[in-house]
């Protein structure tokens, strides 16, 4: 329940974060959320709601896109991190897996992993981490000397997550891991994400369009629209909310999946209770 959850101190918390792009476009309008140690927290919402921006605000990757956190605080493990730059934040223990995989196409699989271990100092540790990644993703092991650009989409996503594991972060920010993947692969990847969370104890903040699968592994979820949180709760809470069912899970009132053939040319007004 939110109340009990709120009582604990969060590992990562965003407090009224405001993000502006190019000095004018307000993307996040006072966004607050908490991620507790060991949790998988899902952040759902429509396109342009600001989910990716939220992740980039945490990981310090806004700057290359001309964005900036103009207000509010981001606290990670008692540390104010909204002014730190991306490399520092990775060293602090937050690693973002960006949307669209963004693997280094011209580097080999293993070189990609080594790049992920940039912040790791000891060479032996790098070796160990590579072995760990290969234990989660045996397919990558088979292709470790291949140029990553020629991997399939699923393998690229695995590589992207593997790169994150290399840095041994406390929090992984995952941006749309299911993007463009076949249903079979989506399942596989989410199973691995869950395993990583359970076995490595890695906290995960997950941005995902596929709400049903995200809710299936998350411990807590937020729903964003227009740059702010409109609803939060445990997956069970959210699954019982009519708006979530209709707009995020595509279910009818009796719980059947709606047919895309019957979509109306108008939208029901959302009632995010506000």
């Amino acid at each position, binding site marked *: 329940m939110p109340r009990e959850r709120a009582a604990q101190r969060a590992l990562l*918390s*965003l*407090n*009224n974060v*405001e993000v502006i792009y190019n000095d004018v476009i307000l993307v996040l*309008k*006072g966004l*607050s*959320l908490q991620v507790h140690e060991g949790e998988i927290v899902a952040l759902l919402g429509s396109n342009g709601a600001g989910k990716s921006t939220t992740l980039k605000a945490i990981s310090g990757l806004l700057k290359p896109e001309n964005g900036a956190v103009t*207000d*509010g*605080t981001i606290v990670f493990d008692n540390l104010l991190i909204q002014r730190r730059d991306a490399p520092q934040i990775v060293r602090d223990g937050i690693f973002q897996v960006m949307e669209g995989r963004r693997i280094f196409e011209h580097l080999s699989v293993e070189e990609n992993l080594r790049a992920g271990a940039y912040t790791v100092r000891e060479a032996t540790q790098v070796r160990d981490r590579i072995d760990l990644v290969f234990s989660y993703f045996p397919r990558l092991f088979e292709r470790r000397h291949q140029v990553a650009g020629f991997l399939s989409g699923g393998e690229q996503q695995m590589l992207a997550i593997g790169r994150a594991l290399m840095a041994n972060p406390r929090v992984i920010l995952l941006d749309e891991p299911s993007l463009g993947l076949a249903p079979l692969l989506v399942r596989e990847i989410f199973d691995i994400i869950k395993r990583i969370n359970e076995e490595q104890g890695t906290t995960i903040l997950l941005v995902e369009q596929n709400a049903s699968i995200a809710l299936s592994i998350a411990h807590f979820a*937020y729903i964003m629209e227009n740059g*702010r*949180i*409109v*609803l*939060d709760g445990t997956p069970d809470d959210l699954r019982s*909310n*009519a708006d979530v069912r209709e707009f995020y899970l595509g279910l009818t*009132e009796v719980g059947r999946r709606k047919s895309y053939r019957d979509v*109306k*040319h*108008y939208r*029901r*007004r959302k*009632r*995010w*209770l*506000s």
Partner: protein
Amino acid sequence: MTARSVPATLPQQLRANAAQFGDAMALREKRFGIWLSITWTEYLTRVRNFALGLHRMGFQRGDRIAILGDNRPEWVIAEVAAQALGGASIGIYQDSVVSEVAYIIDLCQARFIVVEDQEQVDKLLDIWDDLETVESLIYFDPRGLRHYDADFLVAFPDVESDGAAMHAEQPAWFDEQVNLGKSDDTAIISTTSGTTSKPKLALISHGNLLSMADGLAAVDHFKPQHEFVSFLPLAWIGEQMMSMACGMRIGFALNFPEEPETVQHDLREIGPHIMFAPPRIWENMLSTVQVKIEDADRVKRTIFNWALTIGRRAADLKFANKSLTFWQRAGLAAARLLVFHNLLDQLGLRRIKWAYTAGAALGPDVFRFFHGLGVNLKQGYGQTETTGICVIHRDDDIKFQTVGTAMPGAEVTTDNRGEILVRGPMCFSGYFNNPEATTSALTEDGWVRTGDAGYFDEDGHLIVIDRAKDVMTLHDGTRFSPQFIENKLKFSQYVREAVVFGGDDFPYVTAIINIDFGNVGKWAENHKTAYTTYTDLSQKPNVYDLIRREVERTNADLPGAARIRKFLLLHKELDADDAELTRTRKVRRGYIASRYQELIDALYGDYDEARITSTITYQDGRTQTLDVAIRIEPMEPVPGGVAS
């Protein structure tokens, strides 16, 4: 051929306009990226064709046509066409939920319904089996309707082409029908706003509408070349009065926005000369300006604030009928040049000659703000039963605490209990199918009982207190208006809506308050309070502290017994879909009291928290329940106040 005297009905007026203005623009609709225009001649042709088409479908004199949709040319064409055939139209708010639509159609027994699009068609299909009187649904936006095969669904253009065919056969028939129209014929049936009960249907005649237009035009000299943007629901009497009555009588063009979301932009493009809007629109405009100025850089903000100070001072002097000194005038000119000109341009108000507000009280701060910018904003007073307004400010005699003086032709007085009574050509003839209500609303000698309490000040200006029923007798015996307290609370930018209880059965005054999500949210951000949802924000302790200060400020101006002793911040915004507000967004106090009985009990009991299980209704009628704990905030015992 036809009598060319003063037209007595809207269709007659349309015919006269077509003859007089011909190719001048009558209607414009933003569509396909440009303002598609309809001239007066085309307007008349389309009305004629649609009317004849309706006739072929069986529309009879005295029938009613219901219209449900956004403001579009088809909306007004359908209305005037029905009137041309001696029928009446009834507008239904386009955002009404299914049950409301069913209620009104059932009440008015319309035989034909003109609807905009799939959304409205679906609403009607949901309740179709219960609608006994309705024969046809005529739609004018075909999007998404290709698989709908019900035979009672008819496309608007099909009706028109049917009509055109009939006109070719019987060219004189339409004119004859129009000539039959009389001033006393019912032109429209208007739903009352229904703050206290379910809506009633007021019968408004052509004479009511046209005399209203004449009265208003006598006060303010509208011209055919003026522009008007029709963006408020045509089901609302205020919009009928401006668009249909004044628009037709004067002959100015109506402009329909592209989409509800683009109203602000379209308004700016057109730059209307006349605007009539309820307080909420003006309040929203002000808060938009405030937020944007808040976000502007220091230079802009400073200059704006300076200009606004100058403007406000000038407005105050104008209200006091004092003239400005040379330096004040120079300052005002500078403020206009530097700020107001452009600001009004941004808001689309640059060309406004007359702006009106009516329907509820507008806060003095908002009023002063617009006058400070140089917008000639005037208050009016009236109701559906008086065809919009009957009391209004005059250009040179504006006092923000009043609603002005009676319009030409209207008689306004108060009875011994302080209830406002109105008589005149704009007064309605009764409620449809509801003789009881008619009797209680109309006195024998033709006065309309408004149900509002009010009095006249020394200059003869009317001051409205509240709905007479709501005026409460406090425990010390004084009579007091809850609306007065609510308005005082709402002057705060942090309070969006307030519902005050007290008097009669209640030992002291309490309030249920809706915070303004945007402004309180901003405040929370500035005060390092993290929040997620509306519910979360509304229950933050320091938000309570913030609102507490606002309540204290309000209390300071109130007599002891009227002071708010306890309040709570509601976890959800009041919503018309939950029937907490009327479709014109007025608070339905009685309904709220019963809906939140647990909260009221808690406010008058000895609790510091109340749990409430409330239900929200979705547009399509589905509901969802939620369970929240709400804090009750007691105020300090007021010195001199009576302990409960």
